[in-house]
């Protein structure tokens, strides 16, 4: 389990709360979420997940930078994510194949939120999971707006 969101002086969940996904959670709810997160370390260039793989977790960047790109095309990044960002969020909703590759740009520590743990929270913590779902849906809505506008621009051009 993960405790690296706690500061050296003891105990703080505020770093978790700054993530938009968990912004509405109470202290008790943050503690529950913290209890199901798992820490993973990656070396520079290491693949966190690959395009086409089944998705089974959301990842939160704790330290370092992560590159999102098409498989085998790290020179054409889709996005570069730093501490406090999250990616792979669609895996909380289904296990469809990953649409892109995620790889560490530098030494990284990420928190992994497994879809199976989220499903357990859905069953046991309705209010908590609904707050996360609302934030996740807002995030997806923003992405969809961006994608549709990009599409219209592309078609227009």
């Amino acid at each position, binding site marked *: 389990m993960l405790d690296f969101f706690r500061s050296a002086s003891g105990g703080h969940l505020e770093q978790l709360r700054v993530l938009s996904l968990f912004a509405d959670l109470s202290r008790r709810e943050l503690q529950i979420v913290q209890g199901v997160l798992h820490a993973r370390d990656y070396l520079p260039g290491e693949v966190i997940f690959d395009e086409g793989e089944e998705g089974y977790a959301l990842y939160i960047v704790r330290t370092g930078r992560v590159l999102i790109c098409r498989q085998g095309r790290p020179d054409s990044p889709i996005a570069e994510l730093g501490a406090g960002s999250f990616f792979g969020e669609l895996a909380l909703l289904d296990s469809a194949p990953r649409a892109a590759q995620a790889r560490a740009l530098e030494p990284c520590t990420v928190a992994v939120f497994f879809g199976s743990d989220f499903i357990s929270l859905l069953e046991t913590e309705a209010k908590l999971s609904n707050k996360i779902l609302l934030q996740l849906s807002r995030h997806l809505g923003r992405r969809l707006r961006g994608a*549709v506008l990009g*599409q219209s621009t592309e078609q227009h051009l």
Partner: protein
Amino acid sequence: MDPIAVFAESPPPEAPVRIDRLVVPTWQHAEWGRVFRHGVRRSLSAHEVLIQSGATDRSLHFVVDGNFEVGITYVDGMSMSTVAQINAGTVIGEQSFFDGHPRSANVWAVSSGEILTLPFAAFETLAMEEPPLARDLTFALARVLSLRLRNTTVRVRR
């Protein structure tokens, strides 16, 4: 058309297959009824506008009957492109419902149809009164968003 039957029962074989159908596997007629009692039914004529781009309303519309189109107006304000066609068994307006931002597209009825509108305030009431129902509905809506996002992203790549 009975809104509860449209969403609680499997679509007829002749109905078009929708990958973004709103599905809550664990719900029966009773659960849909408890959600829909918070909504308002409305009939639309062919060509009637349901959502105007830029509007600040954040209601969620459940499509009970008919066909609808989603269109985006380009920056020049003169041309428009249809980006999606939507029919019974799914929802319209989920982006503004969640994020509260103005509507990003126009939606109009292609044929006569019927919707059931759930205002965001009614959803908040539902979430207070029945958290498990609100959680199930939010999860199903998030999956619709996810599917539409994947579909849109694939189309953009092509």
